[in-house]
């Protein structure tokens, strides 16, 4: 069974469009959706709504919006990269912002990819399709190893 994809997205329209794009791209992984940064942290810490979440079901890919209520995407990304349990999971920043400062900063703190959501749905579809194809099918993710623990730098999947 495939691991789920975690979608961190506060805009319900974007959520629906992303789910639709995945469905149309025949990506059949379960998609877990959290709607703000705090919920994302709860998901990883298995707190609140996610007390029951099984460790076996850690996501295979994280799609992260940046501008989120409560805790923003940058904080979530920092948490993921600072956490031994999750720092090998590919994180694709999927946001509307094409600000250079955001882009540079996200890569600096360990984003694997940065994608700007296009307005045109067909472009958006292609974008999601390729993300799925590349990160779920082609990319080989680094296994969590003891050595990574020793490294001071944030982990890159």
């Amino acid at each position, binding site marked *: 069974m495939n691991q789920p994809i975690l979608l961190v997205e506060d805009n319900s*329209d974007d959520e629906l*469009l992303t789910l*639709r794009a995945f469905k149309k791209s025949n990506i059949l992984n379960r998609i877990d959706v959290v709607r703000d940064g705090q919920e994302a942290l709860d998901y990883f810490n298995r707190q609140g709504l996610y007390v029951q979440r099984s460790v076996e079901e850690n996501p295979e890919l994280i799609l992260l919006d940046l501008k989120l209520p409560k805790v923003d995407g940058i904080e979530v990304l920092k948490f993921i990269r600072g956490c031994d349990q999750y720092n090998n999971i590919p994180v694709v920043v999927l946001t*509307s912002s094409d*600000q250079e400062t955001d882009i540079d900063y996200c890569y600096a703190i360990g984003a694997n990819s940065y994608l700007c959501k296009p307005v045109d*749905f*067909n472009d*958006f579809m292609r974008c999601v399709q390729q993300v799925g194809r590349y990160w779920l099918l082609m990319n080989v993710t680094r296994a969590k190893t003891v050595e990574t623990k020793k490294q001071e730098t944030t982990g890159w999947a």
Partner: protein
Amino acid sequence: MSIDVDVETLASQGLSREILLNLLNLASDAIILLNDDGRIFSFNRGAETVFGHSESDLIGKSVNVLIPQSFHQAHQQYLHTFKQADIESRAMNSRRPVNGVRKNGEVFHLDAAISKIRLADQWVFMVIMRDISESEQILAELQHYKLHLEDLVEQRTVELCNLNQELEAFSYSVSHDLRAPLRSIDGFSQALLEDYSDSFDELATDYLWRLRRASQHMGELIDNLLILSRVTRYDLSFTTVNLSQLCQKIIPEIVQLDPSRRVNWLIPDNISCWCDEKLCEILLMNLLSNAWKYSAREAQAEIEFGVKMIDQETVFFIKDNGVGFDMAYVDKLFVAFQRLHGGDEFKGTGVGLATVYRIITRHHGRIWAEASVDQGACFYFTLLKG
């Protein structure tokens, strides 16, 4: 017949008095002669102007009339000391300014010089005074402006920083928040077209396509506006840039919009310029895209990039053989949102040339255009003088 004239000659001719009076009245400084006990016996025109008294009113009066009450005693003491002193005179700049009082009661500052002459067993004092109230005031104002200017610069800098931050936040918000609803409009229109195409007739389908086109157009508008605002705030870094290579990099991006078109690109090798590469790429992208767009109706389009010397200035140009425009509207060319062609005729956002203009301005260059309807257009520009 001429004679050698000197002071002795004039004196021998009995002209000493005329010379004295002439000199006294020519001077714009106040010149006052006092006798041993400080009474005025000569008061020139300069003194009349400075103090507001007429000579006839003051002859025989104590010099105290020209000094504020509170300084009378000190002045008396001063004259007494000067009488006893070994020196003959004190120059103007050797002392601090003194206080005077005008006829209207106004107290003011004067620079004063004094000298004494022994006549029989009496002293005669000559005093030259210059009203410095005006220059003091000007100095004070200058000082005030200087301080004020520093404050003002600091204040404006803070304001500008705040404004820049606001603009940053604004464009961030535009880039993030304005695109999201457009994606929804386009995305769900598309979903309707795909999933419910059976339920829609031709008209409904057309409406949905219009929704999609409009949201995509607004998406482009937002993108272009963001570029325009970033061009304004962007920190330039100058290098020697090969503009020919930049063109060669840009052209394939433009061509892929419609590979079927027949376009002859004339781009000579190695045209270089000292400029900011990133901004100049946006500049060339905009001008070449325009040339491409407006030459779409030509069976064989020609787009040329080049450089020539005009009045000893390096002028670059981008020329096409497209529809051109009416020079009557040339003023509107570089104004944001102003378009010379309808959206149905040629697509566009009206921001491209405004961006070009801003890039040129940031390089301290100039841009102008020559065109006529159906005769093509040529955009000339300079980047930095020299």
